[in-house]
């Protein structure tokens, strides 16, 4: 997913890394199916984004036109919708505030990951390597293992120091929701909701670059009652 985001908004991201807020929200049912939501909030930099979109290029890189972005988002939605095991794909794009909300249902996390991988490969016209796209979710019915795709961090290596400094204002929130109670989890920064069904890890985008393991978490659920 992040690969898609970075491909789509590459030009913009390099310039407005400062205030990006990402919410990565997955709801997992006991049968392994679920809902994936991914929200990108760029509203803190909307003036800057509008300024950038008015340009042809920035720092030697072509700036995508708003129409191109809309077109790519629509194409992504169509292609992902056609994948088996993926349904109810919806992308809510607010070009006034620059808030983008992606949502889809999936039959399993494996299906979700391979569907996104295939669509991204298709749209980028290139094969993703293992390093580009290792699995960031795994579920065995008892525990969920989450991480961040390598590509997210690879891209940040290309950022200039001033851009990295600006990332201090950005945030990344990872939420995992379940149908049964959470027994325990390994990430010490994670929080459990009062109803004990949800786990959230929130970190600054800058901290995440400094320590890519910040969002990694293994969440163990209580056993299923027969």
């Amino acid at each position, binding site marked *: 997913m992040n690969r898609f985001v970075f491909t789509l908004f590459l030009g913009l991201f390099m310039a407005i890394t400062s205030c990006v807020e990402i919410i990565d929200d997955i709801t997992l049912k006991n049968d392994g199916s679920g809902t994936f939501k991914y*929200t990108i*909030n760029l509203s*803190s*930099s909307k003036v800057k984004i*509008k*300024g950038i979109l008015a340009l042809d290029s920035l720092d030697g890189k072509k700036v995508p036109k708003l129409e191109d972005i809309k077109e790519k988002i629509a194409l992504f939605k169509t292609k992902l919708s056609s994948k088996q095991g993926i349904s109810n794909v919806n992308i809510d794009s607010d070009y006034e505030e620059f*808030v983008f909300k992606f949502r889809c249902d999936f039959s399993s996390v494996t299906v979700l990951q391979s569907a996104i991988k295939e669509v991204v490969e298709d749209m980028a016209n290139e094969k993703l390597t293992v390093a580009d796209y290792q699995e960031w979710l795994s579920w065995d019915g008892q525990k969920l293992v989450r991480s961040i795709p390598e590509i997210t961090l690879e891209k940040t290596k290309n950022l200039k120091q001033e851009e990295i400094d600006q990332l201090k204002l950005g945030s990344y929130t990872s939420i995992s*929701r379940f149908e049964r109670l959470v027994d325990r989890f390994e990430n010490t920064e994670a929080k459990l909701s009062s109803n004990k069904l949800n786990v959230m890890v929130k970190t600054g985008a800058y901290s995440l670059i400094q320590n890519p393991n910040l969002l990694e978490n293994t969440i163990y659920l209580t056993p299923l009652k027969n």
Partner: protein
Amino acid sequence: MSRPKAHISSRPLQLTLIFCAFLAVRTSFSQRSEALIPKDASTVFSINNFSLLQKISIDDLVKYEFMEEVQQELFDGSTSGKTLKDSGIDFDQKLNVFYGKDDDFEVSGFTFGVKDKQKLFSVFDDFALVESPYEGVEYYTSYFNSLLIQGTSALLIRVEPSMESVDAVTDSIWFSRGNRNPFEQFDTYEEPENESEDEFLNELQNEVDAEESDPLDLEMLTGEDDLEQKNYYELRDSVQMELQASLMERVCNELLIRKINLVTFDNRFAEQLTHNSEAIFYLDNARSLQNAQGLWYFETMFPSLYQDIKELYSGNVMLGDLMLHENSVEFVMNARYGPELGSIYEEMNDARFDKQVLKYINKNNTAYFTYNIDMRQAYEQAYKVIMPILSDERNLRISTNVLTLELLNEFVDKDALFNTYKGSMFGTFGGIKKIKTTKIVFSYDEETFEYVEKEVDAEEDMPVFTIGFTTERSDIPEKVLKHLSRMTSRFQNKGNYWVYEDAILEAAPLYMINRNGLFIFTNDEDLVVNHADGYGEEALKGKEAKKCKKSGFMYGKIDWSTTIEKFPKDFFSEKQNQVLDAMRGKTGNMELTTSETTKEGTRFDLVYYFEGSYENSGKYLLDLLNSIYVMSK
């Protein structure tokens, strides 16, 4: 009593005269590097105080854009860890970098003094000695360039024929051999209409399959029947090589046999070379006009008009001096005009300074400029000079345009037009200010971690600009503003000023002040709300204000450290950013003043006053020269 005295005093005089004569003879007869600059060079900069560069590493030097022609020669490890001092170059001679272009070819390179050939060829190690057709000249060549050494001076040169001339000669040979158009098979492509991506890809695949079974029509690219004959591209390569050799010979013959070089060809350049500044700059605008891509249409469609425009530009040359002082760097540029263009500039720049603008320049502005021109006078003079040229053109389109211009000249109320827009203006940069905006935030429910979005107030950085124009007819822009306010509620009259909501990037308001003989655009809310009639005590006053008034048609000042770092790069082109990048990290003030403009020219004086001292003056010099080169090329 007087004779012995005269006799005694005449001896030192004689010795002095002999010594001077010796120096004169030595200077006249010794070969200097500038004598190897081809007359075809239209842009030259010469570094006089070459010794400043001794500490510069060659690897750093060749990274500059003005050295791009020799980069292939030097970026091969032969220069690693070496400075210019190790390169065998004679620092007592000037280093002259040149570039020129005309319809037929492009010439570039540099000339310099040679002190130690062995060391020189440890740097230029790709050059091989070839038989020289010129007496007393050693001739070396590499894959890209030629190096000629005459006495103690060297010329590194590259000559490239223009693509147009190569195409013209190639086509001429190709068709004279009875060949068909080599691109015929590519002319049949038609843009598909409303084709889906899949359909397009399928079609492409079918074409590839078809081509595999029916390979490319080789006869198109080769001579029809004779496959031994060169194909079009091979022929083109051969033509290019031949033209290059012939042009190189032409340039060298002119330089080394006929002894014609830029110094002998243009006495303005020769005079500029006598200056004692650290570096001099020469740009022949008349010849550089040919490089202007926008004029190719005129050149093709209206050749006689193009010739007239060229003549208008004749004599138009920029001569510059770069001087390094203890706490400043000064760049003096003399723009010399030909009589006709000069007469237009003279009239245009003969404008009275509008004191009102000073009220709106805050003394704390980090950058500002004033620009005084008289559009009415410039128009009248340009009409006088340009209309006869256009009228002579026997072309229907030009004649129609001439008639339109003549009618407009009769019917349009020029008083109203030029009193509304007189031409004088000012601009300021007030740094970065926070503007009020909104943003979306997500708040989480602790029970479920569900989140909802809400809009909250926020602030974003925005560069603050003000730009104002002198007007004597404030009623005319007022009419336009009133009309616009009737069209949209985003346009509002606020009494002392007008506001256009969300005009800038659909997020920030643009304000307009139409008072005191000025029409001002700004995004500075403080200016319009609190200082609609000017800054009062905070306005530019005293010495600084006097400088604006005294300068010719233009004055500008920038607090470099606070402006350049904050100035958004997005506002500038790639070239302009290269110049700014060279200046980033440097502190101090930069000031531009101009002289009165005469028919002959205008003098621009750009002084950069820096704080402390520069650690490496050579690097400074190169940064500045490269900036000038990038801008002028």
